[in-house]
């Protein structure tokens, strides 16, 4: 059997006694939205989906491979780039559908932008600038818990930035560029909203007792560690450069025991951290942030949980998505 040779065969890639002609085919490329289509000729029969994307891009510069999906039907799932076209029955004369995902941006870029904003914005409010709080605001004494809150907040977002750079592995490299503005808008607005109240000269310290601050701070610290532990475990599940999926199970870290009870303990710990921050600062805005965050993470967790259960027939039955025993 001859080895498939990509690109133009030259004297160097084949033995002088074998002549392997790369057969080619003509395809019709149809836009998945709308009715425009064009012909693409000389597509190697043994090309992959990824190769096809590059050929389409050569024909039309707008269709950068990263923003396209090849589909068998206008509303079907995008084909895996590594698959050979013929595996999907794409042959000479076939019509394939091209989905334009729009301008894309890397996940890493998005995360770094999303998280740097809150870090910087909170610290600006922390300094009580006069353009926000009026003149003399920074001279008003700070409650000790306000310093603690600034430290916690900064730790949280610095941890997120470092995780983005060193821990997380993303299964799909990009997302639509509009998400950058949506996500950043959310994070940055809430950062300003919370920072405004905690750092306000008229801020009122938690009413119960000093121990309220201690207890909730401890909860915050544990939750941050728990969240980090979960991320670390999840990273270890997936070998670098792959998109392999495995059932997560607890390791020697006691904080990871939560994996026995929920599919996404990282979200559970994250929610706990924000509840702790709210209790520590007794600030309603933080409570709203915890609530909204929980609502969104619950939706994600339920999706991930459903995927796990679908993918693994032996998935532990007692596990829930995000709240042990309940949700």
């Amino acid at each position, binding site marked *: 059997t001859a080895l498939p040779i990509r690109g133009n065969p030259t004297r160097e890639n084949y033995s002088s006694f074998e002549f392997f002609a790369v057969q080619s085919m003509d395809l019709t490329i149809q836009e998945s939205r709308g009715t425009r289509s064009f012909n693409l000729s000389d597509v190697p029969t043994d090309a992959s989906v990824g190769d096809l994307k590059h050929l389409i891009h050569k024909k039309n510069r707008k269709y950068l491979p990263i923003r396209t999906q090849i589909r068998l039907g206008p509303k079907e799932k995008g084909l895996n780039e590594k698959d050979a076209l013929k595996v999907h029955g794409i042959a000479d004369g076939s019509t394939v559908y091209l989905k334009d995902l729009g301008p894309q941006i890397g996940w890493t870029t998005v995360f770094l932008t999303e998280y740097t904003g809150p870090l910087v914005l909170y610290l600006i409010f922390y300094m009580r600038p006069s353009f926000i709080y009026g003149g003399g605001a920074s001279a008003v004494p700070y409650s000790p818990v306000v310093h603690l809150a600034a430290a916690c907040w900064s730790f949280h977002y610095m941890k997120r930035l470092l995780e983005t750079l060193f821990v997380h592995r993303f299964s799909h490299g990009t997302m639509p560029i509009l998400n950058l503005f949506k996500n950043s808008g959310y994070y940055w607005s809430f950062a300003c909203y919370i920072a405004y109240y905690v750092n306000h000269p008229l801020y*009122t310290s938690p009413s119960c007792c000093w121990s309220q601050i201690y207890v909730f701070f401890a909860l915050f610290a544990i939750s941050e560690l728990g969240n980090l532990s979960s991320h670390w475990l999840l990273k270890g599940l997936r070998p670098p450069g792959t998109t392999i999926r495995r059932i997560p199970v607890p390791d020697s870290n006691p904080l990871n025991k939560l994996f026995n009870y929920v599919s996404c303990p990282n979200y559970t710990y994250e929610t706990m951290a924000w509840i702790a921050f709210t209790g520590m600062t007794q600030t309603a805005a933080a409570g709203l942030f915890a609530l909204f965050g929980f609502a969104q993470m619950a939706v994600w967790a339920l999706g991930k949980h459903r995927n796990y259960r679908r993918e693994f027939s032996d998935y532990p039955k007692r596990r829930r998505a995000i709240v042990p025993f309940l949700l």
Partner: protein
Amino acid sequence: MLAKSYLLIYNGFQALGWTFILYRGLLHFASSPSTKDFYEGFYTAVEYPLKIAQTLAVLEILHALIGLVRSGFMLTFFQVFSRETLLWLVASAGGPKIQTHYGIVAMVLAWTITEIIRYSYYFCNSLKWVPFVLTWCRYTFFIVLYPLGVLGELLLIGNMMPIAQETGMFSYRLPNKWNISFDFHVFLCCATLLYLPIFPQLYLHMLRQRRKIVGGGDRRVKGD
């Protein structure tokens, strides 16, 4: 099915309710000696049935939440929330200065005709028989009603802002135990800004729906 009967009753009741509001409005128009008398007394003429019908609409949030209807929860929530705010926090709380403004007529008239068509449409839809004229109305009247309503709403919000600032109504100030504050005047400003992105989106969406369902404006003659 119980759900279907309930929805028939709800939509039917609302369609009749809003028709009654229109009736009250027309009665008032007929008995108004001048245009000024008309728009100054309009709110008083429709206030009670309007409050009943519009406030009942919060049920629709519940319907969307439990999946009784296909509408999305978020969209329904924002729609109903904005209506209740305009009705109770602006029109009702605004006092005579707001209630005698001609913007009230624009806003309430737009709401009334839209809702009569909308609830009748849902009613007929449940019975699986929608006369095309109703569908046509649903996807045509909005072209004028939607901008008219928004104009009325913005006029009223704009006139409410100085009142909110002076009276400090619906506002909660620092310092307090939960370190939260709410400034109604700021809220009204933010609400106004939101019209900028939201109105074009919704309007264009309806126009696109219209093209799909009703076919849109002039057709090209075949063979061109």
